[in-house]
């Protein structure tokens, strides 16, 4: 029994196994990214491979730790000693990165919230169960002179219960940080205020792009397809610029789910679809899409990343050492 155990330990801690696992990881990543780009990395098979690599890396590094003193004693050259330290630090860094990733997989969360100006959303609950909410004061797009977006900014207030905890501006590359939670500017979009009239009944909606609305008392439906800030027929469904020079709503009309027509309506125009069936687009509400993330593994991954960079630099420091003049170019080390 002990014999079997010993052999298993030898195999799982050997560098050859590690190299084989690395090769498998490369092949799986390359193939996986082309076959199942979205799902592959969540597959059990792939994660099992990562765990095996983690175990192998852990055992290899443990062995290296045990042998370090002997290895260092053998080397009198400072560069070779640094290389030994570097190899240890590099592999430890990788272990920390994998630990950070695993913690994130088990205990991390992330999600998105869509917030229109003046809206509030629940972000999380703190340890006492009190609600942590985010209120969007304003969303702005800063532009360059050529009208390309230069920054997306969400001015927000963060509340715990009714108490204001923090006021901040979240923008791309500048997330908000609050007690282990990070909130990122991810995207934005527009919602359209719509009034619909059918058989004398009037309904108002705030519709998202792509939303299908029923006209009461009829078999008609209207789809709010897309908001175009600067409409120009020559540009089709694309906006000529990001600025609202000629704002239109592209909509489509259906009867019994059959497409009957498409139009580009300005705001404030009452459109007759059928006798006693009308639709009017009243205005626009822009919303900000924020990513909310909690990753308790981040400090480990971060520390791992730094160790990994430092270790790699030290481990390969011997590339600057003067090589021995020999034709078979044997590296005199380890």
């Amino acid at each position, binding site marked *: 029994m002990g014999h079997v155990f010993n052999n298993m330990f030898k195999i799982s801690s050997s560098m050859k196994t590690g190299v084989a696992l690395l090769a498998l990881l490369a092949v799986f990543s390359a193939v996986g990214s082309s076959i199942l780009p979205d799902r*592959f990395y969540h597959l059990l098979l792939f994660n099992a491979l990562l765990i095996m690599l983690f175990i192998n890396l852990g055992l290899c590094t443990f062995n290296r730790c045990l042998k370090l003193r002997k290895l260092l004693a053998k080397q009198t050259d400072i560069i070779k000693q640094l290389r030994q330290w570097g190899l240890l630090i590099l592999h430890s860094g990788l272990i920390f990165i994998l630990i950070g990733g695993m913690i994130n997989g088990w205990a991390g969360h992330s999600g998105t919230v869509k917030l229109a100006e003046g809206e509030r959303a629940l972000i999380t609950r703190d340890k006492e169960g009190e609600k942590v909410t985010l209120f969007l004061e304003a969303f702005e797009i800063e532009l360059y002179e050529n009208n390309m977006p230069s920054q997306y900014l969400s001015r927000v207030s963060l509340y715990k219960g009714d108490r204001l905890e923090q006021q901040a501006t979240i923008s*791309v590359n500048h997330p908000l940080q609050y007690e282990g939670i990070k909130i990122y500017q991810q995207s934005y979009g527009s919602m359209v205020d719509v009034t619909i009239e059918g058989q004398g009944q009037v309904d108002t909606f705030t519709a998202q792009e792509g939303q299908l609305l029923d006209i009461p008392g009829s078999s008609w439906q209207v789809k709010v397809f897309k908001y175009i800030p600067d409409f120009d027929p020559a540009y089709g469904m694309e906006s000529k610029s990001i600025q609202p020079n000629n704002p239109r709503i592209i909509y489509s009309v259906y009867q019994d789910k059959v497409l009957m027509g498409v139009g580009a309506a300005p705001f404030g125009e009452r459109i007759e679809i059928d006798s006693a069936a009308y639709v009017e687009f009243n205005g626009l509400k822009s919303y900000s899409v924020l990513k909310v993330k909690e990753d308790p593994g981040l400090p480990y991954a971060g520390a791992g990343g730094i160790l990994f960079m430092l270790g*790699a630099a030290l481990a390969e420091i011997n590339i600057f050492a003067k090589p021995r003049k020999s034709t078979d170019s044997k590296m005199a080390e380890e």
Partner: protein
Amino acid sequence: MAVLIKISIGLAMFVYLISGILYAVGLKTRHNQLFQAAKLAAITGVLANLTALVARTIISGRLPLTDGYEFLISFTFISVLLYLLYEKMSQSKTSGAVLMFIAALLLASVFILMPHQHGAYSPLMPALKSPWLTSHVLTAVIAYSAFTLGAALAAVQLVKKENNEDINVYRAAGGGFVMLSISIVLGGIWAEQAWGTYWSWDPKETWALVTWIIYAIYLHVYRSKGWKGSNANLMVVAGFILVLFTFFGVNYLLSGLHSYG
């Protein structure tokens, strides 16, 4: 300025090609003057290449590291610069031909894939407006360049069935590996700030990982039995092909978070 950039890159491409031919003929005929002329052509090319980079920096007001076009020009420049440094240190001229042909081809791809970008640049999109941009891309450029040098040395070793340059192949690949490792970590730190995750399995990330793994395997086995010599050199050449795929394939065939044109 656009014209100056276009002419500089065209000139650099042309003299890199001439330099490659001179190195190749020099290898056959063993005439030292040919090697001298090849080196002179390479230096002329590097200067023209540098002119393009400086002109680009002046018109855009930032370092030329923000899109595929600028990456290619910087990548070629550093590759040739590293080679010249290597030639000075090692006094070996055997891999000059391969390297200069690669450099000429890289610049030719600028004319084929992005013929209208010489003077065209756009302001930075929000995600790119970060202090991490320069360090992340610069380390990637240096890594790619070191891998190019390593592959040129390894390819010559393979053809000549020699292995007296193995140590230099290792130095180039090892240096590239360190730079790629640093670049990946810096990219992760940046991605965590900009996208909210340090690793998204975006095609560029995935293929950078695959590239990193092949060099990691090389560094684990290049001195061991059965791998030493030609098999190890083959891995360095294969790694370089992956580098090219990570750049061209991912930029022009696959779309993802790293799509910056």
